[in-house]
């Protein structure tokens, strides 16, 4: 949380901050609607909501180009939106419709969109560390200046694959940035019960450049990522970014009564004082970059866009049953 303060926020123009606000707003609205689709029984299965963590996906992806890669997690809607996926096809996927990003074969936890560099969300915790690092290897072999971002949560710090791949990324100076979204809980267990020692030191042990950032502050995430992306593009190898954050809701939509593993007071503190949308809006107003009314307008516009996307998905047809045997093999 130190180095990012050196960044001159005034170097970023008002429109770009507003765009980041709009992106975070889209993610939040998407998730609120996904939650509603679950409770109204219109969505099959469960889903894992990203509400509270929006600044990370947006801050990271704003520092990327379209052709850069990301791999995502079971809590992946925010990453998909931030990397440029369209909301209607995402909702269609959540509902198992043919118009979905994966023709209804992936669902909430497997949205992939190669047109925006999204190599797929992954329902195995830490499971995409190999894919992201392999993409980094491919970038280096093909000689482009792309970067690959591996999003994962603090739960993935328990997985050996992450350490195998970070070792290789540093050995071979691969352009991979490991973004750890530390929302404090491995499902229903606080990570003080699951992770020994320092989280950041795990990457530092390999000699990987590691930084820590306030994951509730999109400005800090973005500013830090700009630097990390640039050094990876310049061939300086991988980086590790530890983002301190919190999921405002449960592990998944059905995780409603959470008091057996975390207190209401803790939730209230994060929601009231560390909301990434409120914080960005407050800073912009304070800095004289925007009038308070503009944020309400953005929210209204986003909500209309999201409502239309939900409507599209609800009305979209399911895949033909004959699709079940398609795409097993290329």
């Amino acid at each position, binding site marked *: 949380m130190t180095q990012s303060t050196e960044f001159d926020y005034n170097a970023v123009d008002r429109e770009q901050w507003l765009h980041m606000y709009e992106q975070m707003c889209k993610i939040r609205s998407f998730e609120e609607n996904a939650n509603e689709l679950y409770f109204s029984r219109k969505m099959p299965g469960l889903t894992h909501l990203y509400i509270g963590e929006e600044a990370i996906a947006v801050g990271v992806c704003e520092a990327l180009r379209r052709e850069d*890669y990301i*791999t995502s997690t079971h809590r992946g809607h925010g990453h998909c939106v931030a990397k440029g996926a369209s909301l209607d096809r995402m909702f269609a996927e959540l509902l198992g419709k043919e118009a*979905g*990003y*994966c*023709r*209804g*074969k*992936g669902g909430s936890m*497997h949205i*992939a*969109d*190669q047109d925006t560099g999204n*190599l*797929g969300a*992954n329902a*195995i915790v830490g*499971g*995409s*560390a*190999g*894919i*992201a*690092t*392999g*993409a*980094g*290897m*491919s*970038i280096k*072999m*093909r000689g482009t200046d792309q970067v*690959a971002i591996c999003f994962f949560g603090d739960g993935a710090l328990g997985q*050996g*694959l992450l350490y*195998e*791949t970070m*070792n*290789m990324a540093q*050995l071979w100076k691969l352009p991979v940035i490991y973004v750890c979204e530390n929302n404090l809980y491995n499902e229903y267990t606080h990570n003080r019960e699951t992770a020994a020692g320092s989280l950041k030191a795990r990457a530092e042990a390999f000699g990987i450049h590691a930084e820590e950032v306030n994951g509730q502050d999109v400005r800090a995430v973005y500013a830090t990522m700009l630097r990390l992306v640039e050094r990876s593009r310049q061939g300086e190898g991988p980086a590790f970014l530890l983002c301190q954050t919190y999921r405002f809701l449960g592990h998944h939509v059905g995780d409603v009564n959470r008091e057996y593993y975390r207190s209401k007071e803790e939730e209230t503190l994060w929601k009231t004082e560390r909301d990434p949308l409120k914080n960005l809006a407050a800073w912009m107003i304070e800095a004289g970059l925007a009038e308070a009314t503009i944020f309400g307008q953005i929210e209204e516009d986003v909500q209309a866009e999201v409502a239309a996307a939900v409507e599209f998905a609800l009305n979209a047809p399911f895949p033909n049953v004959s699709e079940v045997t*398609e*795409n*097993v*093999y*290329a």
Partner: protein
Amino acid sequence: MSMLKPSPTDRVLTFSEAIREAIAEEMRRDPTVFIMGEDVAEAGTVFKVLVGLVEEFGPQRVIDSPISEAGIAGLGVGAAITGMRPIIDIMFGDFITLTMDQMVNQAAKTHYMSGGKLKVPMVLRTTLGATRRSAAQHSQSLHAWFSHVPGLIVAIPSTPYDAKGLMKSAIRNDNPVAIFEDKMLYQLKGPVPEGEYLIPFGVADIKREGTDITLVATSSMVQVALEAATLLADLGISAEVVDPRTTTPLDKQTLIDSAKKTSRAIVIDEGYEQYGVTAEIASVIADGAFYYLDAPVKRMGAMNVPVPFSPVLEDVTVPMPQGVVDMAKMLCGKN
């Protein structure tokens, strides 16, 4: 370009040389092909199969990795999705257990889960086979594990000719392909034509024609079946040896047709007998040739025990020619 049989006049290569030639040819043809694994570069693998490749293609394409089977399999998936054609070398087949999440949950499912958008053109090459006195963690034949998973292709060559043609097909294929090489076959010699050829997946090869009994045999067991067939011929029993060459996809029709012709079948594979390749193939034959069969379809796999070290113990755990002969005699009523 695809041929189904070598010619007796072809030059002779070892199984190991055939594999190396296949990889070298594909690496010359396609700059996106690379190979990564433990001791693949200067060492040329513990079995010396890849000797010379790093000298020709350099350490950027023949990459010594840490001892991280899960990690290299995962890097293979990521590189394959983004435009490369990796060959991931897993030294012993026993170590595929360490790659399972990457192969089963990632490589095998990526194409399907993405609705057909992403492709994973990677090859995992590894070994199978006992009787090298290497004990329980270096002797297993675990190809059934991958054969169980939709989305993976599994090739199990038994001759130098098949090894080369299947390896080249594997490298060119847009799916994850696991190719299991029998450690005991590396020095086996056989005809391999000079020109380029591919062997398609899902096409069985009749290694020896016969009329009285079908011996379906895979990989290491093909030589066992051929020896048994020679012994059986002396007893007046004509055995047909059919090699599926790939377990997934499986050439069901050739297996069924052979069993219909001979009316008897034994399925021989070096994987554990329980829930294994022999069970699947026996079921295919029993189902498809039911009305033509004069005897139940029998299975011979590795004994359902961890592979023991002591030679006297190890040798009884895998099918041997005499055991196949005894089983065939029983099925043919020649006891």
